[in-house]
């Protein structure tokens, strides 16, 4: 495997299993990241608390819990409060991306589909 312990820890919360699996593969083989996937929004917070990631990629539209709910749970807890969140969304219009300045509810976001190079840029920019 390409996984190298010691890289930046990324948690991706998204119900699309194929997507999270490929993101994990693509990020980890750069050698820069250690990725954990979580396909259930409801577990997003607890997984984050246990994994202590350096950044969370969070799908906005999850079937069992809205991404914004997960984000507020994270914000309410001392342990996860300062973890940067990057939202992932499929339903935002280009015009809205332009108008929002790339920020939803104070968090940056990425519109799906995204090229891995672009994703890495955003991750590196937002990682603490």
């Amino acid at each position: 495997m390409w996984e190298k312990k010691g890289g930046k820890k990324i948690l991706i919360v998204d119900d699309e299993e194929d997507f999270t699996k490929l993101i994990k593969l693509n990020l980890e083989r750069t050698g820069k990241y250690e990725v954990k996937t979580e396909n259930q929004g409801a577990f997003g917070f607890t997984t984050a608390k246990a994994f202590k990631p350096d950044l969370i990629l969070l799908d906005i539209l999850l079937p069992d819990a809205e991404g914004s709910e997960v984000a507020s749970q994270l914000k309410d807890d001392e342990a996860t409060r300062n973890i940067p969140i990057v939202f992932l969304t499929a339903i935002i219009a280009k015009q809205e991306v332009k108008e929002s300045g790339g920020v939803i509810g104070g968090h940056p976001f990425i519109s799906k589909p995204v090229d891995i190079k672009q994703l890495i840029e955003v991750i590196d920019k937002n990682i603490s």
Partner: protein
Amino acid sequence: MPIRILLIEDNQDHAEITKRILQKSDAGYQVDSAMDAQEGLKKIFENPYDAVLCDYRLPGLTALDILKEMNNKKKDTPFVVVTALGNEKVAVDIMKEGAYDYIVKDVLYNDTLDIVIKKVIDRYKAKKEKEGLEEEIRKAYVELRETQDQLIQSEKLSAIGQLASGVAHEVRNPLAIIMQGLNYLEDKIPATEREASEILIMLKDNIKRADKIINTLLDFSRAGSLNLQPEDINSILEISLNLVRARLKFENIDVILETKEDIPFVLGDKNKLEQVFINIFLNAVQAMPKGGRIIIRSFDKKLEEIKNGIGKRADDHFQVGEKTVIVEIEDTGIGITEKNLKRIFDPFFTTKTTMGGAGLGLSVGRNIIHMHKGLIFAESKPGEGTKITILLKVAKGDRVSKKKE
């Protein structure tokens, strides 16, 4: 209110007799008289008579000529012709010309005159009432049709809004997976495999293509809020034109700019209006594959004619008498058939399937113009070209467009 009658009769004795008969009636007639056709016509057009009683044969002219003149000028007053006995041919002619009735000067004249006049006045009233009702029905029908159209339109939009988000979610997630899969394969395929690398690029381009359609769809379904400011329409037109100028030149299309100076500022969202104009320009380009001409006009006008969206009702976008700024964009292209013209503002309607048009440009355009409380129309003649007309609201204040130095 007395009933006003005009009596046109050149024979003074006959006039006097008729007057006396009428004055005996319980109807309370007020009789005015004219001695010849000219005087009669003048009085008919100047006064609101309830009925006209006219001798057939007058000096120079006949009652038929008076009737014809009234018809020409669309003057409708109950008109009764007095004819001599035995002249039934005349009676038929005048009835054909629209006389309400005729009466023969005979022994029964005394008794029937009052009845005939009352009858024609009643008929006139009934006719007017019927016309009034018909007009009301017609108006109600037009309103109903317009409301129905608006309802269908807004239902369509709301359905499209929901559909758009659903489609975006369901299509973009698989696209995102495919994209990540391609990203994964990119690194697996050695740079020496040129063909495979090219295929990967092709696949990524096609993801972008599908994503672009989703984007347009989403933009369409949420035209969003407008940032309305007083704007110089001529400058918005010029900016939009500059953005497509290179393309126009390449396609051998001449631009004729007939923008009017000193037209009032419009209340508009600059970016959104640019989007609308650019879209219309690009449609024009596609309608002129062999080159041609785009004529762009701007002017201001006081609206006088009632038509779709211009009227007196509160929900009309424009009121009759209102000043508006009008933009016309005309091309010399292939034109649009009457059948297609009705649908060009419909979402997803396109004739440019081979060019990858999503069929949303003009319907987005119409959304934007409607959000401006403006109007957009299209006229077209196949083989000659198409003209898009946009009406916009004038901004408050007295700023006007100035020629650039």
